[in-house]
């Protein structure tokens, strides 16, 4: 389970990830097969300017957050990492929503609950 420590909201990111982390995960979710750092970098650099070391750092962070797994693979040039998604997109979003709502309720109590009720009522009336 991903552990939420900070919440950021924006158009590009997935709520608890930096923009680059979000972009990397979106690539991996489209094709959940195993990925090398270089493969993700070559896909990503078509859309944005990014260094290979930056992609490697991001994948390491996602691994620390237990969102991706990795294993060492033997190749001709040496031993390198193969990364795979540990959490699918839907489960990740579910986790983010659950943790976020839980945190809001823990921090704001009745204020948060009342707001959710109002919001759901509005949505219901709106159809």
């Amino acid at each position, binding site marked *: 389970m991903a552990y939420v420590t900070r919440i950021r909201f924006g158009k590009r990111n997935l709520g608890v990830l930096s923009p680059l982390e979000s972009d990397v995960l979106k690539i991996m979710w489209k094709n959940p097969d195993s990925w090398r750092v270089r493969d993700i970098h070559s896909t990503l650099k078509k859309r944005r300017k990014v260094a290979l070391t930056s992609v490697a750092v991001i994948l390491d962070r996602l691994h620390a957050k237990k969102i991706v797994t990795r294993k*060492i693979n033997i190749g001709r040039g040496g031993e390198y990492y193969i990364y795979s998604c540990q959490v699918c997109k839907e489960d990740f979003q579910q986790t983010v929503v659950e943790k976020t709502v839980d945190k809001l309720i823990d921090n704001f109590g009745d204020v948060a609950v009342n707001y959710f009720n109002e919001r759901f009522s509005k949505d219901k009336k709106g159809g």
Partner: protein
Amino acid sequence: MEVLFSSPTCFSASTILGVDKIAIAIFSLSIAVLLLLLLRRGFSTKSKIFLIYGHLAFLFFPFVLLAANTGCGTLSMSCHNNYQQLIAYALPGTLAASALAGLFVIPAFYTLSSRREIKSSHVRNFVRRHSTTMNIKTPKLYVIDKAKPMAFSFRSLRSAIFLSAGIFDVLTKKEIEAILLHEIAHIKHHSSVIKVSTAIARIFSPLTLIVRFHDASGIEEEKADKFAIKTQGTSRHIRNAKRKVEAFD
């Protein structure tokens, strides 16, 4: 009242040590200073290692002498309460333990905990070829399960080079080769031994605070880089490799 002291002159240094032994102690300390000053000269790495441990041995010899001569006669106390002996023997003992740890235990720890040898034939052949050229035994090659690009080596009972998996993710083939050449040079020049020895000297010898004797890290890194540059005919690969390693943080 019980007489506690056996002799009115028991506190005199000459009765504790003997005048001849004081002279030996002073002579020993002088040799220690001389050896430290010699380290500033351009001796080979092996010679510098001997000079470092020679300096420490002569520096601690007076303490051992004190311990050996501080017998139970002093203050007529029981031998079991002779803390001076304990402290005096503890200093060279700690030094010996540190040297053993730095030169043998820590390299063995890394070797045993890595458990994963590099299987890539290209890397193994490259290291074997250049080790033969450098006239050293081919070091063992291990991969460390870390994303941060890093490489280090030990020269111990069996030399070894450790590379992280991150190095193969981030560096090009030529850059990896530059790093391997750099580490082979470290093994050839006993860099790990002199770095550990210099660190031990800095910890145990207060004289190293006064006399700047060997910038182990800087000199050893320069020598290793020079070897990589000379072998590849360009500084580009080693520079790029180092830049990428630093950029990872």
